[in-house]
């Protein structure tokens, strides 16, 4: 293919994000938190007692989780049965925890069936992965101490569905920590986890919608807000300037509109895109964060599933709706971080960075036609070494048929990443559109063309497109990996 690029667009010598494939098993967890704490282990022992004094007793289960009776016959309802994708979470003992649609309590019998299927296969020292019945897939993910099940009539593959289930598991771990989750079930197998997950259903609901819609989940990457590199550097250095003296800040993340503006990190530590997706999900699903500065515990399962980071979460200002998260391992430094945030905002205001952010937020990305590629409809470009991707604005017909585009990309991604026979290059024409998908060592590219495009001009366009992105890489990607 004709592209004369030495280095793929968006590549950088150092990455702010961990770069791995999205389907990789989530099991290996680092113990970063302990490391960071020990680094600064000054006699703070008297503080640590406070946490332990508040350990609750999981035995007292006097209080029942209230259930609403409004949808008594939900299971019989057509609406429930025709949903294209159900997701269920239950404990290993078969206790209902979450159902995407309907009331879990009314579905107790169904959870019983799922638990039986899992334990039946387990009794032969085997693990159930999926059942295929006609066009319906039942995908199981057994992750101690939970069982997650997806029942789907969508085109998504088993891998893609179990990756979504993994996200759901991580969402649960992110609010409780894996350590606590395990401890709860060690103490009491029959525990009703819904008690602790009150309000988290909302996060899981949002996460599922989000992961079905956003290419970032399929690609295992994040999109950055387009900003001149000087502006992005200014923002990063304002954050570094305000925070460098504060010990134990691990990450500072500035995001807006589901796009990353900048990420400053502690030396040695990187954030995994999957963790960043959970953060995006939290911010998007929690309107209440807009009302005031918040202080919240947050576990990033890929970073360290055993404990909490504490986050100062706030929007920059009334006139700039970008959300700043300052994550630390210290439990009570709210005011220190609050003050740092003030300094950051002042600095950004002085350097006109707030305006620049607003400008970029208000301007939509160029569509392919505007950028000078009339034969292209849409594309996704992912730079592997930095786990970042770029996409242009949607143009017709996908403004109306967005779901078709999403499915197109999911399918192409699967063909490039299936474990049995992964393709390197795919070019496919249908009556609706043509798609070219290309997996190289440095990048992945998915381009959707007008249906009548021929192979030569498609290849030419791709070459031109790569050059176009290369020219703008400083603006479209977060190339520096600033540290405190």
């Amino acid at each position, binding site marked *: 293919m004709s592209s004369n690029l030495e280095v793929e667009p968006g590549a950088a010598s150092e990455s702010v994000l961990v770069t791995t494939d999205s389907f990789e098993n989530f099991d290996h967890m680092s113990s970063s938190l302990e490391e960071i704490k020990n680094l600064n282990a000054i006699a703070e022992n008297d503080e640590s007692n*406070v*946490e332990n*004094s*508040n*350990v*609750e007793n999981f035995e007292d289960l006097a*209080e029942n989780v*209230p259930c609403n009776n409004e949808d008594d016959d939900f299971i019989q309802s057509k609406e429930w049965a025709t949903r294209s994708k159900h997701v269920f979470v239950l404990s290993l003992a078969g206790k209902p925890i979450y159902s995407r649609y309907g009331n879990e309590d009314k579905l107790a019998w169904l959870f019983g069936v799922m638990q039986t299927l899992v334990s039946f296969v387990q009794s032969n020292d085997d693990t159930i992965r999926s059942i295929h019945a006609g066009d319906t897939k039942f995908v199981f993910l057994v992750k101690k101490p939970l069982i997650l099940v997806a029942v789907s009539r969508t085109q998504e593959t088993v891998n893609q569905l179990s990756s979504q289930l993994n996200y759901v598991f991580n969402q649960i771990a992110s*609010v*409780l920590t894996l350590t606590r989750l395990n401890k709860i079930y060690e103490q009491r197998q029959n525990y009703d986890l819904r*008690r*602790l*997950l*009150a*309000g*988290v259903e*909302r996060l899981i609901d949002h996460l599922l919608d989000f992961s079905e819609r956003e290419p970032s989940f399929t690609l295992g990457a994040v999109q950055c807000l387009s900003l001149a590199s000087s502006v992005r550097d200014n923002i990063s250095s304002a954050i570094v300037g305000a925070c460098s003296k504060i010990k134990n800040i691990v990450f500072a993340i500035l995001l807006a509109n589901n796009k990353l503006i900048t990420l400053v990190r502690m030396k040695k530590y990187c954030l995994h895109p999957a963790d960043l997706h959970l953060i995006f999900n*939290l911010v998007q*699903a*929690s*309107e*209440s*964060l807009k*009302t*005031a*500065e*918040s*202080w*919240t*515990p947050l576990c990033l399962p890929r970073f360290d599933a055993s404990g909490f980071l504490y*986050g100062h*979460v706030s929007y920059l200002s009334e006139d700039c709706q970008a959300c700043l998260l300052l994550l630390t391992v210290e*439990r*009570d*430094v*709210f*005011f*220190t971080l*609050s*003050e740092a945030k003030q300094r950051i905002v002042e600095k950004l205001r002085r350097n006109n960075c707030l305006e620049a952010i607003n400008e970029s937020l208000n301007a939509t990305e160029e569509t392919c036609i505007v950028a000078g590629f009339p034969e292209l409809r849409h594309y996704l470009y992912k730079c592997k070494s930095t786990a970042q991707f770029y996409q242009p604005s949607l143009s017709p017909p996908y403004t109306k048929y967005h779901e078709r585009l999403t499915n197109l990309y999911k399918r192409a991604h699967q063909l490039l990443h299936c474990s049995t026979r992964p393709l390197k290059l795919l070019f496919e024409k249908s009556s609706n559109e043509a798609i070219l998908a290309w997996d190289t060592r440095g990048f992945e590219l998915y381009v959707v063309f007008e249906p009548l495009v021929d192979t030569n001009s498609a290849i030419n366009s791709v070459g031109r497109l790569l050059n176009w992105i290369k020219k703008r890489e400083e603006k479209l990607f977060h190339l520096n990996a600033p540290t405190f």
Partner: protein
Amino acid sequence: MKTIVGKVVVLGHQGVGKTSTVIRYVENSFTHHITPTVGASFFSCKILIDDITVKLQIWDTAGQERFKAMAPMFYRNANAALIVFDITSQQSFESMQGWVVELQRNVESPMVLCVVGNKIDLSKNREVTRDEAIQYARSIGASYHECSAMQDQGVGVVFDDVARGLIRLFGNTTDHNLKVYDSENIDNIMASSSELEATDTGKEETVNLSIRSIAHGNTVKPKCC
């Protein structure tokens, strides 16, 4: 002119309207579909009572059970607690009593306690009677208010009462964590990381009968200690 800075913690069951009450007071606005608080939110506001400015640093905590372990961070060193329940929910009333017990166990210094019954706009579904609530509030030496954050009824009175309570607390006892400043210029108080530094207790008078010295205690009975 005297300025008092008091730390106020807002506690209560999930969904009783803690955030709505605070936002009604601080911003005078109300949203029907507010999402649950994540962790805790911080607000600050000033009230002028007679010639004293009372600056409230309000910690609006999340009511969900999973955040319970975080609560001590916020009620430690608090000078006042707003304990909110929903008058249409007996469960929230009981859960509120749990919070009071926890405060009594863990907070030694005197504290202004204020019990708030929210959602009086829904009084046709009332499950907790006014008398029951008043009686309970008396028994713990707290004041009692009913309000509706949605219809903006009685919210101002709650915070006014907290402020007055703080002034009384300041006048009555020496064992308190209140910060008092003589000038009006206290805008940089936040900057001194008030959380972290040892608070300025005057004399060592840490009696264990904290409940006795609550500002509103007319009919105070010390509960099990």
